[in-house]
């Protein structure tokens, strides 16, 4: 079975769960849901371009980088409760976009914007760590039943663990493509783990909201 199936399975599961609880999801979670939809489409279309059209699909993932940074970043900004942190992270998101543009202009859209990706990964890791610390720890509620915990953990896990490989991605593609093909399995595994964790956060939020609605009426 192609690896694409495993990638899509996690995303489809999260999409179905997110769709089911859509009315109960708050704006940041909806942004994450939209991103999962974009990721599923990009993944499938990228696979189609490469396998059927035998063309480069890097440009597609370069655009996906911007979408991911902004959607996940805006979700984190909305989840943050400290106003000055929101402003700082918004500025860092804008700087990230500028780095992406410079990266693409310098190397062309057909070369993976690795520097921009690494910047995004570090930024999202720090943002979701901030979300985790400002939202969950000080609330004195069971952390494991809080949707924000699972969303933040899934993002931190994916982004932080992907940084070491992504730093060397372009170097490996050029100098050691065989090694790169093997090492990218780190990214694959993280990708497969990430979305079911996001789905857990959708389920928890959906159930919490449904309980509140049931109690109210």
């Amino acid at each position, binding site marked *: 079975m192609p690896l694409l199936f495993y990638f899509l399975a996690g995303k489809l599961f999260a999409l179905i769960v997110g769709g089911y609880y859509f009315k109960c999801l708050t704006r940041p979670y909806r942004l994450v849901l939209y991103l999962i939809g974009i990721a599923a489409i990009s993944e499938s279309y990228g696979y189609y371009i490469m396998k059927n059209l035998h063309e480069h699909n890097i440009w597609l993932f370069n655009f996906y980088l911007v979408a991911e940074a902004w959607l996940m970043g805006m979700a984190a900004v909305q989840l943050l409760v400290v106003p000055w942190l929101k402003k700082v992270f918004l500025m860092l998101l804008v700087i990230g976009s500028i780095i992406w543009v410079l990266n693409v202009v310098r190397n062309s859209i057909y070369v993976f914007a690795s520097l921009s990706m690494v910047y995004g990964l570090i930024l999202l890791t720090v943002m979701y*760590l901030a979300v*985790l610390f400002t939202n*969950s*720890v*000080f609330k*004195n*509620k*069971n*952390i*494991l039943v809080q949707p924000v915990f699972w969303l933040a*953990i899934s993002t*931190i*896990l994916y982004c*932080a*663990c992907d*940084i*070491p*490989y992504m730093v*060397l991605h372009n170097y*490996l593609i050029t100098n*050691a493509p065989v*090694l790169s093909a*093997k*090492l990218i399995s*780190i990214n694959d595994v993280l990708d497969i783990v990430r979305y079911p964790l996001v789905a857990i956060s959708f389920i928890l939020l959906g159930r919490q909201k449904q309980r509140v609605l049931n109690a109210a009426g």
Partner: protein
Amino acid sequence: MFSNPIVLTVLVATLMMLLLIAVVIITMVLSNRRNVQQEVKMAQMHLDHEKGLRLLQDEVMAEVARELHDNIGQRLTFMKLQLQQQKAVNPASAVSLLPVSDMVVETIEEVRVLGRSLNSDVIEKNGLVYTLEKEVERMRTLNKFEVHWEHDKEPELIKDQKVIVFRIFQETLNNLLKYAEAKNVYISMGGGSNFKLVMKDDGKGFDVEQVMSSGKGAGLKNILKRAELGKLKCSIDSAPSAQGGKGTTFTLEKIV
């Protein structure tokens, strides 16, 4: 593959990241668990404190009830006897003493009823149905509204819960007297294991949320707190006459 320094660097760095995240998560979960436990402990202490206060309040009320019965009650009875004696000795004064004598008799009865309503031991001795019935009778004598009272067998509640139900019942009836301007009050109580007390009136109603948030609802908050202490579920459904008032329905039931 693993002998390649680049692969090794990437793998070690990734594992380090993973380890770091694991440490962060474990620390957070442990710290959160400690916080939650502390919060639960604080809530329990608060509950115990509230319970202690209620017990103390009941003891004070019981003491007042005893004092009313043993001291004031006895003095009034003595006055009544003296008046009777005076009437026997001096029949000419009987007519002028009659209103005083009647008032003393009424006061004795009122003190007896008040003493009973203050003493929670009466509930344990006579049962909740009997005690509530006596309160209903007391309300009927005031002729402020028509009380329709129906009940089932004695509800299966522990002593503390019965006392709490009785006190809430008293507080709600007092609220009805003071604010409701009702013509009819319908009270029903389910017994056995299906305890449910419903008090419905056709009065002017009120905005529950506004009263609760405005700081005027001390009595209502007290009722809710008492219900929570007794592990009872309490709900108030009401709307002011301006919003198509439908009176007030107060429900108290056992949490299953």
